[in-house]
Structures are given as C-alpha cells and as structure tokens.
C-alpha cells in the first residue's frame, strides 16, 4: 500500500470535532454507520452476502467443496478464510500477493468465526479421516471507506448464515450450513483522547489505535485484536468491550434478519 499523505488540516479538523464530541459525518461516538445486508447475492457461491457499512462495501462468498480433514480433527469440516484488497476498492490498494493488512484482516475475521464455533464443523464430516466439507470464505472488498474488519466480519457471518451444503454432489440432500453462534465484531478507534466506534476512512487514517472486540450472543468475548501504533489503557479496553456488547446486539439482529 503506498504511503498516504494526510493533510494536517484534515487531522486537526477531525481532532477538533472529536474534542467537542462530534464526528465528521455527524454520528455520535458510539454510533455505527448504517448496515445493509444483501444475502445470496452470488448464485455461483454456496453462500454469499454483499454488505454495506456506510460507504464501505464488501462482498463475501462462501464456496463449499469436498476435501480432506486435518489429521488432528478427522471428524470436522475445514474453514479457511482469505481476503483480497483489490485495487478497485481504494487508490491505496495494489494488486499482487496479499499485503500484511489483508492477511491480518483475513485472520481476524477467521478467528472471530472459528473461536466462536459459529459453524458446527462436526456436522460437516462425510467420512471420518477421509472426506469432509471444506468452507472457503473469500472476502472481496469493493469500496473502502474505513473499518473493513467489521464489514468483512458481518459479510462472512451473513454469507455463512445463508450457505447451503451441496450434499447433492455426493448423492445426499443439500442442507443449510449448521450455524450455532452469531459473533459480532465491533471496532473502536482512539482519536486523541476520544474513542469512536466504527471509524470511517478519514477517522481511521488519523486514529492512534484500533481495538476490535468480537462478542457472542451472551456478551462473552470471543476475539480481540488491537491495531495501529498507539495504545489503550485498561479502562479504555473495558469501554470498548461494553460498546461491542451493546452495538453488537443491534447489528446481530440486522444480520440475522438480512
């Protein structure tokens, strides 16, 4: 990703707004952008969703195919997550092998799903040790206006939630992917001494630190990832967890109904 030159004016503008409790797009600090979810967007995928979080636009497809299990989990299906930050989505994305940013994104989304046991992988075994269903989650960012972590995470969960296991391929009846949990990631960004949720691109660029907290339907913590070059103190971490629980509850409903 090429270096991004942010004018000092922009930084001052957003910092000044934040100091007076405001954000450049009019939201309050703990207010996420509007989320729209379009499930089953892609017919060639076993599951898919196009998700718009404000102006951030992400398409996630789930392909499900027969493959071999890992030796250590012979009765479980396999989950694998990739992200492409295609140059269509931003003047700062370049084609080529996945950047560290894309790799971190894919791994954080993957952990959010995996650690919550979102998919019951034991129901994805065909023949123990030999054949299981493999899920490929592919994150395709189309338009990047900040906070890809959450948008990709919502897209992945939405795509999984409508995915069909193509069991007719092996002479059985197709069935919906067995989902058991609904983990929601919510990202907070620290701007000066303020902490805002779901940062847009302008906020993300000047933020000191970022904290993504994934909570489940019980409010338990399932994954966390701190990013950027600044720091949080413990009280700020606690605040981010509370925000994640509260915002997560609302967005979980949007995704479940989407």
């Amino acid at each position, binding site marked *: 990703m090429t270096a991004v030159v*942010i004018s000092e004016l922009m930084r001052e503008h957003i910092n000044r707004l934040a100091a007076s409790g405001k954000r*450049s797009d009019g939201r309050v600090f703990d207010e996420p952008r509007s989320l729209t979810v379009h499930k089953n967007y892609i017919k060639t995928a076993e599951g898919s969703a196009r998700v718009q979080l404000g102006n951030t636009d992400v398409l996630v497809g789930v392909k499900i195919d027969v493959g071999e299990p890992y030796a250590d989990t012979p009765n479980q299906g396999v989950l694998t997550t990739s992200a492409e930050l*295609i140059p269509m989505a931003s003047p700062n994305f370049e084609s080529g092998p996945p950047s560290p940013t894309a790799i971190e994104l894919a791994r954080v989304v993957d952990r959010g799903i995996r650690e919550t046991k979102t998919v019951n992988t034991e129901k994805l075994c065909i023949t123990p040790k030999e054949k299981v269903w493999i899920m490929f989650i592919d994150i*395709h960012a189309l338009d990047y*206006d900040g906070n890809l972590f959450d948008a990709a995470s919502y897209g992945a969960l939405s795509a999984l939630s409508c995915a069909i296991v193509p069991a007719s391929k092996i002479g059985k009846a197709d069935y919906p992917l067995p989902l058991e949990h609904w983990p929601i990631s919510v990202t907070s960004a620290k701007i000066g001494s303020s902490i805002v949720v779901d940062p847009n691109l302008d906020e993300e660029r000047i933020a000191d630190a970022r904290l993504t907290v994934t909570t489940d339907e019980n409010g338990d913590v399932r994954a966390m990832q701190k990013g950027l070059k600044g720091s949080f103190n413990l009280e700020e971490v606690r605040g981010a967890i509370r925000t994640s629980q509260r915002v997560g509850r609302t967005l979980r409903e949007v995704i479940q109904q989407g």
Partner: protein
Amino acid sequence: MGDVEHIPKELKLIDESGVRLDGRRYDELRPIRIEAGVLKKADGSAYIEWGNNKVLAAVYGPREAHPRHLQDPAKALVQCRYNMAPFSVTERKRPGPDRRSVEISKVISEAFASVVFVEQFPRTSVDIFIEVLQADAGTRCAGLTAASVALADAGIPMRDLVTSCASGKIGGVVALDLNKDEDNFGEADCPMAIVPRTGEIVLLQMDGHLTVDEFERAMDLSIVATKGIYELQRDALRRRYSAMAEQAMEAPPPPPIPSELPPPPDMPEDELPEVDDL
C-alpha cells in the same frame, strides 16, 4: 472451448424451431442492465448484469504511473486488470491472476488504447479494474462494456464508447451471445469489441471452427447487437448525469473539509462533448 464439467452427449443446444436452452432465438441477447457511478472511491465505475454475469468496473486516473520507469513521457498508459472473484465460478478459483486473466487484461487494455486521448496525459496511467463477481460466459465482453461506461463516468476523454459482444456457433447454428453451457458444448466463440460509430474493431478473438461464411454471419450478429448495447451504455450515463445534477441541486454545499483527492486532471473543456452526446 471452456472447461466442461459433465458432457451430456445428447445435449441439444438449439432445437428444431430455433429455440435455445434458455428460450432465446439465435439472434437474441441475454438481458443486460448497466448502472454507472456505483462506487464511491473510484474516479468512475459501472456495474453490469448480462444474463447471469455480474461484473463491476472501476477506473482510477489519469494518475501518476508507477513504477516510474513504466511512465511514457508522451502519453498515458491504459492498463486493465481483469480479475475473477474466487466465488464467481462453480469450482472455486484461487485468488490472483491466472494465465487466462492475464491474457484478457492485455487484450482489453489494447482495446481501449486507441480510444482514450492518451496524448493529453503524459506520464500518467488510466487504470481500469474489472471484477467478475458471478460468471456465466461472456465476462470479457460484459467487463469491457462496463469499463467503457466507467471510463466515461471518470471523465476520461475518449473518441467514443467501446462496445463488446460475442457470437459463436451452437448445434451447427451461428448464434449471438453464448451462455456458459453453449460456450462449453458449442463449436465456436468469437468475442469482439467495436467503436460503434466508426466500425473500428478494437478486440477480436475466435476459437473453435467457423467457415468464412459462418464467421461473416457471426460478425453481422455481433455488430447489430452492439448497436443496442451502445444505447444501454449511453442510457446508463444519461441516468448517472441526471442523478448527479439532481444531487447537485438538492444537496447542501459540501463542508469545507480539505480534500485529499488530487485536483482533477487539466482536461480541455472542448474534449468533453466527444464522449457525451448522450
């Protein structure tokens, strides 16, 4: 032709009364829908649905070409990257370019090179990104057609829009706009792209088996079809400009936040009419 997954030997691609598996006649296009200006970050963009194909195109530029040693001191580079999303095909495609997409990127880049006024923007590149989201044969034609609209949406000065279509041969019959089954089990496919007003053919590929006479008929079908598609492109741009004009009238003036976007390229006013008698 394309990859064949299961070979129904007795598959009849077109029946006695000239009706194809999806109900079309030999000279019928699949439904096409084009929308311009669908992305926020790109300088121009377009979305196309063409039968079961779903394709996005985005344009960035003219912007400084890099790496620098690729810059042409006399003109802009026109660089296309055609890419298929992993989930856009039946068998998941591994991310990243394969040989097929490298070739398609090359021929689409070349198709636009003579249409864009590249001399106006030395040392820059005009970058075209085509993302195939859902594929059903004909993606290069759909992508090129959408990219043309995205270039206009980005305000890139061009001599005209480029329009693309394919014809081929199925069950012994020359037919327009093959879908995936027809492409897999048919006898020939011939995608082309044309500047509709001048008849300049800027992309032409063919594989399969056509007599010279069949080739002529295939080209005739495509040329006629591109005239209709050209109208859809223009219509998408017209709707885009109307929407922008409405927005401009309704919306409050933008806040005085310093923009990080580069100033628009210095393009002569009088070039604009060349693209926009729409």
